[in-house]
């Protein structure tokens, strides 16, 4: 009996040990669900199949505050992952928390990457005090979706059925008014009753005026306040004229476009696969396209954020040695294969892929990819970014202002009072 027990124990150990000798296991955490999640899991599976010596063991956690809280607590006690996805807009808070391990030149070499391979804006958002803290994977931005069927017969479709002639706010509002007059109940849809949708549109309109949300630790100083008020008043006017839906939650706002009730949609690139899939299955019922948001308020700018890869600190230590090299191999491979991530709508941050012929053939992705040069990333601050108090403000103050509870100027006063108090 004893001998049998020993035999079992030995075989159990060898079963565990044998692959471990040859393999490095990389613990991977991400927050990607839905279409993003499916695509990322496929990428991970392929990586594992191609790399017998490195195995990624992936876990998907809840997006937003829950993800970042878990990263924070686990990193503090050294129980974090080896590599994780991270929003570049969240990097400033990550630095304050001491969660992020700097990516060195040696690391980049191990991944066969250089910072010049990436769009400059994304590298800038990932850099602090000359050190790189994350490797950008994509740029995802707000874009303008349009419904070709509803716009037919108007001046805003060219001979090929593509959107044309919208170069200013007047053009855009003329189009919205024309649609309303022609029986379109909701000419433009976006998430008017939620934090994310409101913030992205607001920040785009602010940036298109050259406005900045935070300058030297001050929220909306100087004439930025007027520009912010102008952005809010513009959205409120759309609401008053019945051009945008009242208090629409995210799903409802997408459904309005997908069901052909809304002619335009302001939403992130991540919904592109939704409509591609519907078109393929023949359930969409209208021709569609998506473009970079026209320079409505003067200059070209689109709200953008970026999914990136980061390596967490583990207590006072960090991932090092062979494991770290393996992590960088993973990151390098993901960047090389970013084309399949682009399928989820995102623009590859890695330029060799973004400039490739294969990417140029993807539609409407290649059309709106022009925005990569005009991205407006959230200001680098600990109170902005994904699931931040600034997002809360969009729901709490800007959304009510859009719905007529108070003017743009009053809303800006409240935003300043609320956020400035948190800046310490």
């Amino acid at each position: 009996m004893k001998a049998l027990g020993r035999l079992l124990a030995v075989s159990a150990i060898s079963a565990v040990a044998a692959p471990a000798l040859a393999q490095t296991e990389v613990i991977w955490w991400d927050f990607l669900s839905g279409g993003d999640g499916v695509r990322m899991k496929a990428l991970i599976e392929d990586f594992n199949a191609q790399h017998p010596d490195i195995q990624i063991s992936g876990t998907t956690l809840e997006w937003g505050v829950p993800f970042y809280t878990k990263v924070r607590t686990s990193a503090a006690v050294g129980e974090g992952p080896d590599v994780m996805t991270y929003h570049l807009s969240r990097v400033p808070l990550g630095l304050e928390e001491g969660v992020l391990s700097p990516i060195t030149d040696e690391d980049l070499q191990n991944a066969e990457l250089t910072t010049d391979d990436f769009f400059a804006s994304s590298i800038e958002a990932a850099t602090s005090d000359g050190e790189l803290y994350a490797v950008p994977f994509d740029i995802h931005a707000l874009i303008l979706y349009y419904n070709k069927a509803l716009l037919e017969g108007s001046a805003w479709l060219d001979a090929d059925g593509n959107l044309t002639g919208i170069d200013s706010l007047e053009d855009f509002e003329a189009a919205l008014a024309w649609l309303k007059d022609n029986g379109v109940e909701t000419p433009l849809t976006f998430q008017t009753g939620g934090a994310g949708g409101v913030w992205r549109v607001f920040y785009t309109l602010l940036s298109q005026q050259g406005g900045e949300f935070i300058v030297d630790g001050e929220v909306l100083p100087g004439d930025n306040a007027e520009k912010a008020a102008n952005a809010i008043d513009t959205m409120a006017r759309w609401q008053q004229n019945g051009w945008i839906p009242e208090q629409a939650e995210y799903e409802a706002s997408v459904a309005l476009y997908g069901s052909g009730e809304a002619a335009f949609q302001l939403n992130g690139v991540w919904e592109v696969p939704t409509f591609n899939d519907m078109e393929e299955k023949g359930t969409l019922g209208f021709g569609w396209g998506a473009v970079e948001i026209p320079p409505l308020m003067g200059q070209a700018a689109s709200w953008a954020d970026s999914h990136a890869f980061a390596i967490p600190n583990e207590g006072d230590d960090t991932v090092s040695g062979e494991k770290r090299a393996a992590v960088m191999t993973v990151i390098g491979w993901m960047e090389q294969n970013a084309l399949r991530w682009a399928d989820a709508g995102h623009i590859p941050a890695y330029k060799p892929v973004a400039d490739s012929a294969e990417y140029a053939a993807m539609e409407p992705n290649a059309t709106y990819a022009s925005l990569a040069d005009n991205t407006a990333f959230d200001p680098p601050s600990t109170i902005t970014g994904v699931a931040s108090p600034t997002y809360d403000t969009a729901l709490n103050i800007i959304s009510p202002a859009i719905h007529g509870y108070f003017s743009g100027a009053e809303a800006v006063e409240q935003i300043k009072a609320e956020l400035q108090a948190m800046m310490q």
Partner: protein
Amino acid sequence: MAMLENRRKKNLVALSMVAPFVIVFAVFFLYPTLKMFELSFTNAPLIGDGEWVGLDNYRRLLGDRIFKTSLWNNAYFVLLTVVPTTVIALGIALMINRLSGRLQALVMVLFFLPYVLPVSVVTQIWAWMLDFQFGVLQPVIAVFVGKPVAVFKNPDWVMPMIAAVTIWWTNGFNVLLFIAGLRNIPSELYEAAALDGATKRQQFRRVTWPLLWPVTALVLTLQLILQLKIFDQVYLLSGGGPFNSSFVLLMQVYREAFQLNHGGYSSAVATVLFVLIAVVSVLQFQLLRIGGRR
């Protein structure tokens, strides 16, 4: 000598019996609570230690607009829930008490069912029923005010609506307490009162109400503590908006700790809430006891 030994043995047995509770209480409640007090005097982040800053956090609280708003909203919510839920529960309990047998059990189950549901399910149900575009209750609202209302986005509606959802959710437990209290009142008292010619109303005022008072005081106090701790429903239904009209103290604790990495300041808010609940509930219970004795 033998007696002394016996007593020592008894003490040991007693100690070993309370030890599990005392240890669990000390490790999982007392220690964290003391740590929270300590943290509130530092500028610590969410994890790790900070520097001692004395009363700075509390001084900052005095000038914090959001803190004042939250405090007021907590009070408003208590006003909206504590007494109404007690009155409703008492009414339901009195009615159930008149039923008997299987029917009584069935009705009790019906009222208790919502209490079994997790808060996320409760809020999801109500969020759908009250959805601005598709909610089944919107036509009902339209009958009363003439148009559909996005209730969780409207400053006048948001708190009363969250209060209504909360009462619907937690009322079953209070009904149960009242029914237990009603069953404890001996039926001879009612018989004697009836013989003396007391009407139903007099029976309620002179027999039921005073004898039920200890339970009523308990329900009121439990509700007060529970409703001061409001967080889940607000977080899930309105996120504290619109323009902070439903922002409560625990929302601020959450935001400061998890979104802003301010462990110290967040602990200060939590400490204030802790003291507030302790003081108010003790005060209320004593007042109710005095009121009951008269």
